[in-house]
């Protein structure tokens, strides 16, 4: 598998670390235990295109949001995480 890092270009799988589904969002501080349980433990476990967090730790250290089909491993989109460098230019 090769991921096109928006900063570095296409790179080999070995440079990246996987975290998982990027859809769950960390609940607000007052959201309560059920919301956090859901965030930490429950997964859609998508069979098909899924947007995921990958870390380019073997390269530029950017966290990325990679849209990848879990049935075929085909990658259709990659974008930086909100706080990864360029995304915040001028913010």
């Amino acid at each position, binding site marked *: 598998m090769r991921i096109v890092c928006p*900063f570095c270009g296409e*790179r080999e799988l070995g*440079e990246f670390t996987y975290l998982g589904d990027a859809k769950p969002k960390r609940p607000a501080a007052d959201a309560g235990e059920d919301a956090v349980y859901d965030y930490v433990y429950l997964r859609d476990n998508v069979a098909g295109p899924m947007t995921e967090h990958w870390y380019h730790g073997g*390269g*530029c250290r950017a966290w990325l949001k990679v849209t990848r089909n879990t049935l075929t491993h085909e990658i259709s989109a990659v974008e*930086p995480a909100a706080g990864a*460098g360029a995304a*915040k*230019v001028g913010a």
Partner: protein
Amino acid sequence: MAEFSWDVRSPLDRALIAGSYGAQGDAGVSLTEIRNFDLVQVMARRGKAGEMAKAAQARVGMAAPETPKAVDTADATLIWSGPEQFLVLSKGGRHSIEALGSVFAGSALLSDQSHARALISISGDKARTMLAKLSSIDLHPDVFGVGAAAATSMDHTSVTLWRGKDLADGQAVFNLLVFATFAESLWHTILDSAAEYGVTVGHSEELA
């Protein structure tokens, strides 16, 4: 009062044995460790990438690279190291962290990496062939030209790789910054990879 000497020692001080290594005959790979340099990581503050770029321009007279490139200025090399960050490589304290502090005040945060890395310069007509054993990126001259840079990994270890100016005979030069505590181990791996081509080993105090 005891007499102290504060000798600096490169992380490759023991492992590097100047001379030839591996196959006999014309060496296909030349390895030179560059010792004792200043290396500063410059990272833009949130939303201050523009100001950081201006500050860099004012300081070295060149725009800092915004894509994976390395640019040579009169007395420093600026190497892209990630989004909105770059490394300043220089000698003799001209661009040390102390010297750069005021330059980037307010626009960027600095971290001294001078001692965190070892710098190895690789050339020779088998340099590219040898590097293909270590690097998963495409080093074809059309793809990785003079001034191209990459934050990448070799042997599962993070490195910064860039292509310097070609030598007078047209040979490509690949510069490699490796983490100091991994340097000796990676050095042996490089030697093993290069041995079949014959290697010339040396070290230098001069940036290429």
